[in-house]
Each structure stands twice: as structure tokens, then as C-alpha cells.
């Protein structure tokens, strides 16, 4: 009985640590995606032809490739990137955590860019024209008038994207990130397979809890930043 108690305690701590790692990985990836997506979306809307084309390629590649493939490219692929040039010794060895965040973050940036772009397009051109006719420069008008509103409009899309990244985070177990799935597997192995659903169901529920929490946080953000008269249709 003591063993059982100890076992439960250690498992709970392990899963707790895993949950923390899940949260950190998710948030870091989302932030990276955000930071990349802002210039991408602006470039795609206002940039010249070559820039638009390049961004289109970027978006097309990272939206068209599954996360798992991207992850493997960043982690395993780069370690052997030398093979492409005939120099097998040449490596770009990225540690697991940065590789995971890079993979998830860059993929997310491609999706977030789309979200921002459709929001930017939804802000009428007249607003931009009005800003310019007040004497604002091009970039000033874009950033302070158009993009600020576009961010507001993007909140539903971002809410969705956040939950997607959260639900994609378990693939990082493949590169030994100690998030929840890794911990769960560890517990199952150490108990010699005698527990399975007992571990995975609570873990699933924690993911679900994080999912609900994330939605709630974005809802609150939406409330705080409401522009009267511009509420978006929810649900």
C-alpha cells in the first residue's frame, strides 16, 4: 500500500512537471509564431512582388508540411545536413527544446500569418486612406491604424491556433522533450504496463483542461480589448 501511495505521488509529480513543459513549449512556439507572423503578414499584404512571392513559398511550405516532418527536419535532418553537400561530418545539431520550439513555432507562424492577413484585409482601405490623408507615413499608417485593429480582429483565429499548437505539442516526445506524453510513457513503463488508462485518462483530461483554460484566457483578452460596435460573432 505504501508503494502504491509513493507511486501515485511520484506519478503525479511527473505528470505535473510534464504539464509545465507542455505549457512552456506551447507558449514559446506560439510567441515565436507571432513574432514571425507579424512581418510576414504585413509583407504579404503591402510588400512588392518578389517579397510576396517568397512569403507565399514560405507559407505554402510550412502550411503544407505536417508538424512531425518539420520537427524531424529541424532535429534529425539538420544533424545530417552535411550529406546534402557531400560532407557528412558537417552538422547543425540543434538541441531538442529549440528544435521543438522552432518546428512548432515556424509552422504556427505560417498559419498565424494567414490569420493576420485576412484581418488586415477586413479593415477597410478607407481607414488606411484616412490615416494617410492626415499626413501619416506609409508604415505609420499601417502599423498604428490598420494592424492594431487587425490584431483585435485576429483574436478568434489566434484562440483556435493556440489550441492547435497545444494539441500538437505531444509530438515533441519523439525528440525526448519531457512533456506530458513522455512522462506518461515513463510511468507506464516503470509500472511494467500494469497501468495504462489510469495514466492516460488523467493526462487527457489535463490536456482538455489546458484547452479550456486557453480558450477562457483568450475570451478574457477579447473582452478587455473590445471595440464597442465591432464585436465579432462568437460561436
Amino acid at each position: 500500500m505504501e508503494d502504491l501511495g509513493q507511486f501515485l505521488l511520484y506519478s503525479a509529480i511527473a505528470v505535473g512537471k510534464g504539464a509545465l513543459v507542455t505549457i512552456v513549449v506551447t507558449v514559446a512556439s506560439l510567441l515565436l509564431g507571432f513574432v514571425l507572423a507579424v512581418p510576414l503578414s504585413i509583407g504579404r499584404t503591402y510588400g512588392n512582388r518578389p517579397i510576396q512571392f517568397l512569403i507565399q513559398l514560405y507559407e505554402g511550405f510550412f502550411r503544407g508540411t505536417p508538424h512531425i516532418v518539420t520537427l524531424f527536419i529541424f532535429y534529425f535532418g539538420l544533424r545530417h545536413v552535411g550529406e546534402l553537400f557531400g560532407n557528412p561530418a558537417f552538422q547543425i545539431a540543434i538541441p531538442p527544446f529549440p528544435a521543438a520550439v522552432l518546428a512548432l513555432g515556424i509552422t504556427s507562424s505560417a498559419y498565424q500569418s494567414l490569420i493576420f492577413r485576412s484581418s488586415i484585409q477586413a479593415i477597410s482601405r478607407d481607414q488606411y486612406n484616412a490615416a494617410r490623408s492626415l499626413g501619416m507615413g506609409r508604415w505609420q499608417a499601417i502599423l498604428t491604424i490598420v494592424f492594431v485593429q487587425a490584431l483585435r480582429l485576429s483574436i478568434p483565429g489566434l484562440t483556435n491556433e493556440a489550441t492547435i499548437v497545444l494539441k500538437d505539442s505531444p509530438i515533441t516526445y519523439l525528440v525526448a522533450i519531457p512533456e506530458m506524453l513522455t512522462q506518461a510513457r515513463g510511468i507506464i513503463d516503470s509500472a511494467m504496463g500494469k497501468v495504462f488508462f489510469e495514466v492516460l485518462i488523467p493526462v487527457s483530461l489535463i490536456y482538455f483542461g489546458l484547452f479550456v483554460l486557453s480558450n477562457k484566457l483568450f475570451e478574457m483578452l477579447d473582452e478587455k480589448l473590445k471595440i464597442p460596435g465591432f464585436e465579432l460573432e462568437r460561436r
Partner: protein
Amino acid sequence: MFEYFLEIAPQLGYGLLFTLLFTFVGMVVGFFAAVPLCLIRLYSHGFLYKIVTVYVELVRGTPLLIQLYMIYYGLPKFLLPLGITVTPYTAAFIGFILNSTAYQVEYMKGGFKAISYEQIEAAYSLGMSRWETIFTILVPQGLRFSIPALSNELIYLLKYTSLGFVIQAPELMTQAKHLASTHARYMETYLIVAFIYVGLTFILSKMSDMIDEKLRIPGFAPEKIR
């Protein structure tokens, strides 16, 4: 790189077949399962409604990876004693179908909600019953409005079949990993596979644009983001 591609093409092709199989079966079965579930979700109350809601919320709120994991490694605990084995194929099919159904229910719900309430009133005022209204007026429009979201789902599903790797389902990603380590040519293999997925996504995207064109209700063009 090109000769390498030719060399591994057969195995990749084999994996690709399964990727496509999982995608289309998941999508189609998911669709037919989702329609009645969606109608329940929209128009009924009580017990059935609660079950469907719980199912949809849970599946959409938890990672597909975990779902696949539980099905492949967990189901046997119940089924093995009954003499039923769970192969990677089966687990993959079950997982993708259950997952896609839940998402499609949500997307269809959005499609149906876009129909103005007045049309329901108009149908009633002609004397149509509840079910007549649902099948004659709501379903034809609701499904058509759902097409953009559903075609997105198709593309997502295609990419998520790569998770079949985790349960050793013989799709494209699994092949990629084996080939990469067998030939010790990681970067090339993964890049090739990435481009295959990108290409497939592109083709599917074009196809669904065409279907959308054909089935559109005149006057209701969906917003296109270019």
C-alpha cells in the same frame, strides 16, 4: 538527390497509398457519421444531445496523438481477451474516423447556423413539419455552407495522418523514418517527403476550390483569402 528519390520512390509510393487511404476513409466515413450527429447537436435536447456534445468536445479538446496512442496501445487490453487483435491499420482507421467526425460535426454546425432563422419560419408557415423543414431547407444549405470548412478539414486530415507513424501504421511518414535511417540520408528523405505533402496539399486545395465552385449557391461566394 534525384537518383535517391527514384530509389526510394516505390516505398514512398506504398506509404503514400496508405496516407491517401486513411485520409479519404477518415473524411468520408467522418462525413456520413457527422451529419446525423450534427443534426442531433443542433435540433435535439436531452440524452442524445448530451452524449454527442461530450464526445465532440472531448475529441476536439485533446491531442490526436494521445487518442491514437490510447486506441492502439489501450484497446487491446479489452479486446485481446476476446481474441481480437488491434493492428496498426485498424487503430489508425478508428482514430482518424473518430477524430474527423468530431471536427466535421463542429464545422457543419457553423454551416447550419449561417442559415437565417426566417427561412425556418417561412417553411413552418407553409405547413412543413419539423423534419420536413430540416431535410428540405436546412440540410441542403447547411452542407453547402460547410464546404469551405470541410475542405480545410480534408487538408488537415491529410497532414495529420503522419501521426500514424507513432503507432506504426504504414503510411508515408513511417516509410520516411525507415528509409532515412536505413539509407542514413535523413535530410534528403525528410525534405522529399515534405515536398510530397506540400504537393498533395496543393492538389487537394485546388480540387476543393473546384468542388466549391460547382456546388455554390448563387450569390453566396465564400470569402477568398489570396
